[in-house]
Structures are given as C-alpha cells and as structure tokens.
C-alpha cells in the first residue's frame, strides 16, 4: 500500500478518473459476478423454482442437509476429486519438464513452443468433440491399441474408463498453457546462478533440484492453484462427451448442480451445492498456499 501511495502524488484526483475509466468493468463485474454471487448465496437457503418465483420460501439449512444426505452428491464429489488429484500433478510435471527442455538451445525451439501451446487456444467444446471421435469404437485410439495387440474398447462407454479418458484429454489440452507459464518463470532465473552451479560441479539433476525448483516455486504455486481451481470446475467436457454417464461414473459436481438447477428447477438446492463446492475449493487452495509456499523466502 505504501508503495502505491508514494508513486501516486495526487490520489484523490486520480482516484476519480480511475473510477470513471474502470466503470464499464466495475458495472459488468458487479452486475454479472458480484450480484449473482450474492443472489445464489441467498438462494442456497431457499426453495426456489424459477417458474414459480411466488412460491419461493426460506428453508434454512435444509438444502445443505439434503445435499450432504444425497449419495449422488458424494459420487459427484468423489469423481471431481479423482479428476483433480489425477490430472493436476500429471499436468504440472509434464509442463515443468517440457519447459526445462524447451528452455535449452534446441533446434526448432519456437516451433515446439507454439505447437504445445496450440491446444490451449482451441475451444474446449471443439477438443471434446474431436476426442469423442478419437475414443469411439472405430476411432484412432482403438486403432493404435490394436496395433500393439490390445483389445479395442468403448473408452467413453464403459464406467471403468470413461473418467480416465476425459482426464487424459484434459492433461493433453492444458499442459501447453502451463508449460508457457513455467517457461516465463525459467527465463526470470538469473543465468549467474546456473554458472555458479556449473562451477561448483553440479550436474543436471543437482542444478534442477537446487536451482530450478526453488527458483520456480512461486510460479509452481500459481500453476497448481489455478489448475486445481479450474479442474474442480470441470463441466464442458462432461456436458459434451458423457453427460455424467455411464452409471454416473463421470458425474462431476458442477454437472450435478447444473442438472439439478436446469432440469429439475431446484435452484436453491443447486446453489447450496455450488457453495459446498466453493468451500472444498477454498480448503484446497488454502492448503496449497500453505504448503507450497514453504521455502519461498530462501529463493528470494
């Protein structure tokens, strides 16, 4: 705060013009984010059918109680947790090592950088539709499996493989973005540190362990937290590819609440589920901030 005040000698005047220039964003943020956020908090304590707003009534914590008592809620939460725990570490590791590789002087470096980034600028819906075809019984994945002598299967049609298939797709489609973030972090590491490490006789793994990893800790924290939050909200892929099936094996929390809100008109219940998910995400982010931040001071 002191830093900002010092660099800004006329705070009142600039505050007014700042507000003016910010107003389009502030209005849309307030209208489309802050208001719905508050509104859904109120809704989570109500029984609310959008077709019959006149019948809305407060039910206290009944929605939360019903959610905790619904086995499908726990199924959806378990699937979501499997998704998060299964994809975030894999994506982070791939992105990290790829960034280290792409930071070295290799031929066609910018070609690779661009290539790995491409999936993250493609619409999730497009990726989901393409992968739906790849995973289909006559699709490319089965062709490859047969080539290696395996049995073709219906990847999205079997409860055992559907979620795993979507997780694999998610890793593929997202690691490029995080690779670029890690690359940016790597380029901020002073080369003197590496020179000193070489002089001290440190090998590749030693340098990685004692220079790269600690120096990248802030960006790692950012990548892990952002990716965790995004993964908890997995919805489009499910909506396009499986709609929660088969046998609820891909039913995730956001899809579950969407189903309740827009097919069964239980807006209050869906809002309660949304806030329960919010609590879970908050807890996760808090834990990550707490444990990944250790040692940050040493790096700085």
């Amino acid at each position, binding site marked *: 705060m002191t830093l900002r005040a010092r660099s800004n000698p006329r705070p009142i005047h600039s505050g007014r013009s700042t507000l003016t220039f910010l107003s389009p964003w502030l209005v849309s943020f307030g209208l489309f*984010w802050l208001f719905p956020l508050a509104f859904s908090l109120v809704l989570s304590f109500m029984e609310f059918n959008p*077709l019959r707003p006149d019948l809305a009534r407060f039910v206290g914590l009944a929605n939360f109680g019903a959610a905790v008592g619904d086995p499908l809620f726990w199924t959806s939460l378990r699937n979501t947790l499997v998704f998060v725990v299964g994809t975030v570490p894999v994506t982070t590791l791939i992105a990290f090592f790829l960034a280290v590789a792409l930071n070295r002087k290799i031929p066609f470096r910018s070609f690779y950088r661009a290539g790995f980034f491409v999936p993250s600028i493609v619409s999730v819906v497009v990726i989901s539709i393409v992968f739906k075809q790849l995973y289909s019984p006559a699709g490319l994945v089965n062709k490859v499996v047969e080539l290696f002598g395996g049995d073709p299967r219906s990847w999205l049609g079997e409860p055992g493989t559907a979620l795993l298939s979507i997780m694999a797709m998610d890793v593929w489609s997202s690691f490029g973005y995080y690779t670029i973030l890690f690359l940016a972090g790597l380029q901020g590491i002073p080369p003197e540190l590496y020179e000193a490490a070489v002089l001290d006789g440190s090998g590749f793994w030693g340098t990685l362990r004692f220079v790269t990893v600690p120096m990248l800790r802030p960006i790692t924290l950012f990548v892990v937290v952002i990716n965790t939050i*995004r993964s908890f909200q997995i919805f489009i892929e499910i909506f396009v590819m499986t709609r929660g099936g088969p046998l609820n094996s891909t039913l995730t929390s956001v899809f579950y609440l969407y189903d309740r809100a*827009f097919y069964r008109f239980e807006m209050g219940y869906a809002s309660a589920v949304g806030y329960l998910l*919010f609590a879970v995400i908050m807890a996760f982010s808090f834990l990550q901030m707490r444990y990944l931040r250790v040692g940050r001071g040493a790096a700085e």
Partner: protein
Amino acid sequence: MKSPSVESTRAVPVRRRIESVLRGFRAGVRSGARICLAAGVPAGVRAPASACVGSACVASVCVLALALSGASCQKQSGTKIVFWQFWSADVINPIIAQFEKANPGITVEMQQLTWQNGFEKIVAAVSSGTQPDLCELGSTWVPKFAADGVLADLTSDVADMRDDYLFWDSCTLNDTVFGIPWVAGTRALFYNKELFAKAGLDPEKPPKTWAELSACAKKIHASAAGVYGFGLNTGERYILFKKFMPLAWGNGGAVLTADMRRPALYSVQNIQALDFYRSLKPYSLVEKQDVLDMAFKQGKLGMMISGGWNLSTVPSDAPQLKFGVALVPRPAAGRGSHASFAGSEILVTFAKSKHKAEALKLARFLVSRDNVIALSRAAKSVQPALRGAEDDPYYETHPLERTFVIQLKTAVAPPAHPKWVEIEDEIDAAVEEVLYDRKASGEALLDAHKKIEDIISRP
C-alpha cells in the same frame, strides 16, 4: 482535429494523465483478479469472460434499441406476435410469410431456439415475464410447465381439432389441454441391407420379432470382425429409456399406472423386456447415440433403433450405404405390439402472453394439413402429428418416411407426469445397471420402482 502546435503543448499533461489512469487500471485488474481468485475462479479465464459479457451487453442494448424502434414502427400497422421455435429459418420462414400474407395486420417475429439451450431460455423468459406469445415445446417439458401454471388453458379453443390430431395426452394434464400437437418424432429399426446380405440374411426381410432380432444380430456380428449386430445405447442420460421402453411397452409393460398415481415399472413384462435387451449385449455395440449413428454410417452396425434424423443424415454422409427402415420388433408373432417411443412437439401459449388470439391463429395455420406436411417434408426428421398422414401422396412415394408415419400409430408417448424428467432418470439408471451387470433386471427395476414411488409421493 487540433492543430499540431496545440497538440504538442498539451502532450505532456495528457500523457501523464493517461499513465495515472493506466496505473489505476492495472491496480483494479489486480484486485479484480484477486476477487475472482477468491471466488474460486481462475482470473485468466474470468477477466476476458466479463469483458465479453460487457460487450455482449452493449450489443444487446443496441439490438434492444433497434427492436424498440422497429416495434414502434409496426404498431401502426397492426399486432406483432412473438413466436419461438426450433426449426431453421429456411424451413419455417416460408410458412410464416404465407401466414402474414393471409392475415394482414399481424406480423410475426420469429426467434429460433436450439435444443441445447432452448429449455433454459424459455424458463428464464417465463420467470422474468418476457415469454413469447407462441412457443414450441418438447412434449416431455409440457407437463412440468403446465403443473406450474404458466401455460394458457386451451381446452375450449381446440375442441374442434381433437379428432384430426394425435398426441393430445402429451399436452393434457388433469383433463385440461395446454397445447396443440404440431409434429411428432418416433424411433424405428434401421438396418444395413449389405450387412444382412453378407451374413446370409434376406435384406428385404428385417426382423419382426424379438427372436428374429436376436438371431439377425448374432449372425451379423459373426459375419466379420469389427462389425456389430445391434446398437445398445448407454453413457447418456435422457436417451436410454427411449430405446428400452419400446420393447417394454411392446410387451405390455408400463412406467406408471394409467392414473399416474403409482409406478408400474416392477412388472413381469418389463423384466422380460430388460432381460431380452441385456441378452443382445454380446453381439452389440454399447455406445452413445452419435457414436452408434456414426458406426451405422460407416457400415459397421447391422441394426439400431434410432430417430428420423438419420433419414437425411445417412444419405448425405454415407451416400453409398443401402439401408432400410422397419417397425420396432414385437415380442413374438401374434403377441405384443410394435411399440416405440413417441415424442411430439407442442405449440403452447402462456398464461401471461399478450396476444393469445393471434397466437392461436398462427398455431392453427402451422398445424393445418398442408403446412405441417410441408414442414415434415423439409425437415424429414419428424412426421405430422396428424391422423391419416400416411395416406398423403407424398408418403406413398417415400417408403422410409412412411414407415415412420406408420410406426407413430403404435408408438407410445411417455406419461405426461410433471416429474417425468426425474422418473426417466431412474429408468435410465436401471437400464445402465443391468447393461453393466451391476444388478439383475428384477433387482434394478424394483429399485427404480421404489425410487419413482418416492418421486411421485413427494409434494
């Protein structure tokens, strides 16, 4: 434009001011990002999203302004009715143009909805009081809207039409009629004639009974590697019951009792049907609808129960494929019926709509014999909800579409229960549990039966 000299003297303070604004802007973005993060939303994702919403907002204000100015112009010339429907403009606009020509003084503002988000859009419009005058609804949505009291009662308005149209049950709740049946879609048996021939079967004799269906599926599956006899739907909700219930209905089964007060799912007829459905699995491709459609087009699927959309998509995507359409097989010769799933599209007007009389006029025009047949011909995926449509000269020269029209006569519409969406979910779950061997047919149906009992008894 200011002269260059003025520009240069002002340049420094202006730049400084811009810088201070930018500083503030950056700070704002930072704090915004922090708020987004706290709200469990990645800032990188949300910031552009809110920008999009902002620009969409501006755009919609412009559109609104245009619409308002348009409305004020049209007010002098007569009534304007708003009509929401799901057909593409080139299919529906010629019919609307004819209506406007025949009814000077009424203009129709048509808006096209999509099946992906139309439902949400209608719900939002009804709850905010911006509902259209006339609206097309899927038949499974009608009971829910009717039970919530948002649809206009049309019982006396349509009394003279009842004998000429089918599917009144789908738009009737407690003896009150809430809509007019427009078009209907059903499911029939599609079969690949070449695969039939290769398997040593007569391509002109599709299976008529369960036993024949099973035998054909077995032979086709055995005829070549990577070829499946039948397509079993799975992995998608809201679709499975449309494939299983035709067999159950054909066997005399039901979901609810006739008065819709109690479930009827746990019955010998339904268990037999589900056992038979499960017995097809060894020769079948177990997949989602679009994958089954794709496999059929690729010539890898012998038979599937699917909808009228294939009548236009299969010839256009796979012109060389020789296929036939037959009625859904019945349990045995002389026993049961060739039942199928029937879904219809219903024209409704809302209790709060402003121009009900004009909307009804348009509805009557749309469902009139010539117009509804013209629409069905253009769309191919649906058939008229009209009694005796199969005798129309068009269907006599189009046998595949005629099969669909005939199939409609023995097709069953799901019970018009306000909680049907929840009820069908339980049927879907039971079918999946049996297909994946989690439960036996009787156990799965009994569990679903009990859950449906809970759903119905809940207020």
